[in-house]
């Protein structure tokens, strides 16, 4: 089975979801025409990233009567979509979220679990912490969504793997930083390393869409990637340039790689559980 995946590496208007919606719909139409099955947008693709006090003003609920989601759900009849937005829950907490839309339905919503609140980041000040990491079924097999800092921690991808995800969908609004003599930024190098590592360790497909553009002095570096279950790079979008990059995924590669390298088969989950329980309950925990 083949999956034509589109990485929508876009720039966004800060705090204007309706303007960003137009871009989403236009790119979804074009990608569907180009034969894509699934189009992945970056973190907070409908709102922009450094929202600060705009957070509450741009929040939406991923449901059919929402003015932002109604047209997106309509578009998802032709092409599956992963979109980034600010979600307001029924008790008015705000999350950095990503919604997977397919055939007119919301199939899954992931709320960002790890909110970086250090250095140049201030997410914990404005957003509530997501509290679940779950894989979900798609037309192309079981998938999992993580947002930026979520995959800087090793446990969320590991949990998705155990929950059955073979297709990892990662999204970012990663500010470029760490200029030295190397031809790419330190932030880009690190993200590429760990994406390749997860593909190799979990013998799975890892697709990452990062945004481009600027917000005040911050630049977003793009460079979206797809790695296959052997950890090989299938495609990389250009750095800093807006555009949709298509990648054809041969999903049978899972079969071939796992026949060669049965890491999933041999994973000793009961041992993990036992040792985690011991570590977390022992009096000398907190190491």
């Amino acid at each position, binding site marked *: 089975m083949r999956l034509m995946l589109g990485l929508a590496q876009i720039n966004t*208007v*800060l*705090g*204007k979801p309706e303007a960003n919606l137009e871009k989403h719909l236009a790119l979804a139409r074009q990608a569907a025409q180009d034969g894509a099955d699934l189009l992945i947008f970056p973190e907070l693709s409908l709102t922009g990233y*450094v929202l*600060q*006090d*705009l957070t509450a003003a741009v929040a939406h609920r991923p449901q059919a009567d929402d003015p932002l989601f109604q047209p997106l759900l309509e578009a998802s009849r032709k092409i599956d979509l992963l979109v980034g937005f600010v979600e307001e829950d029924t008790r008015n907490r705000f999350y950095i979220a990503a919604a997977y839309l397919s055939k007119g339905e919301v199939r899954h919503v992931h709320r960002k679990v790890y909110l970086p609140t250090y250095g140049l980041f201030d997410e914990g000040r404005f957003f509530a912490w997501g509290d679940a990491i779950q894989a979900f079924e798609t037309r192309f097999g079981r998938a999992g969504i993580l947002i930026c800092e979520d995959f800087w921690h090793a446990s969320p991808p590991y949990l998705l793997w155990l929950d059955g995800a073979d297709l990892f969908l990662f999204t970012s609004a990663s500010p*470029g930083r760490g*200029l*030295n*003599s*190397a*031809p*790419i*930024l330190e932030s880009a190098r690190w993200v590429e390393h760990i994406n390749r590592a997860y593909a190799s360790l979990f013998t799975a497909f890892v697709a990452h869409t990062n945004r481009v*553009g*600027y*917000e*005040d*002095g911050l*630049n977003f570096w793009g460079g979206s990637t797809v790695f296959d279950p052997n950890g090989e790079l299938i495609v990389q979008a250009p*750095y*800093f340039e807006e555009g949709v990059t298509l990648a054809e995924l041969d999903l049978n590669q899972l079969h071939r790689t796992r026949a060669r390298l049965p890491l999933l088969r041999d994973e000793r989950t009961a041992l993990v559980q036992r040792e985690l329980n011991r570590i977390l309950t022992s009096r000398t925990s907190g190491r």
Partner: protein
Amino acid sequence: MKPIDLTINTDLARRILTGFIRSEITRMGFSRAVIGLSGGIDSAVSCFLAAEALGGQNVLAVRMPYRTSSPDSLEDAQKVIDATGVQSLTVEITRMVEPLFQRFPDMDNMRRGNIMARQRMIILYDQSAAFGGLVVGTGNKTEILLGYTTLYGDSACALNPIGDLYKTQLRQLAEALGVPESIRRKAPSADLWAGQTDEGELGYTYAEVDQLLYLLVDQRYTPQECIEAGFDASFVHKVVDRMRRNQFKRILPPIAKLSNRTIGYDFLYLRDWGT
């Protein structure tokens, strides 16, 4: 002492910085830039970057000499204008600032220098309105950290593409951009009075202080760790103290909080809000 490598990839810097200038000027509804061109390396780099980002015809370089300004400065600025194809204007500030100097005849060099820097700011912001362009800054990371700048003078700008590059790194970028050699080779100077040089006034070289600042700021070394890494203790303390004393030049003036929502504390929006 182990050498500290401040080398940057200039292609990458150039790409990010020209994109920054284009983005931050166009989203504010402008397409043009205004730059005070001194003949020194910092404003030359800003001018090259702005010309590359916006096109030379969309950049206005303003030369603002005082009667004691070095003739080399005007000539070097002209080289930048010729190389980048930017529009240019020369506005001499002598007759604008001297009445104020005469009103306070006991004025020292620092006061006179600040007045000249602020007079140049007035001209740049007036040209900003006349030309329909935003003022692009020319301050580098070294001088911002050391506070070697005039508040509301040469530090005033709408956006600054080079403020996260140390002077040493700026020299690399200048070479890659093709900034003429005479500009890159001469001793850095504010040129506020004859014979003034940055390194003479500061008391140390940019090569030295950039390495120390890189450890203190970028690598988060403590002053003691810098001394253990081989820097002279009095040099370290002098620089740390200078950085601290000049924090006021790096932030907006604090507003006394009275209400539940106060600008600067809990009224938080980027400048790019809505764009």
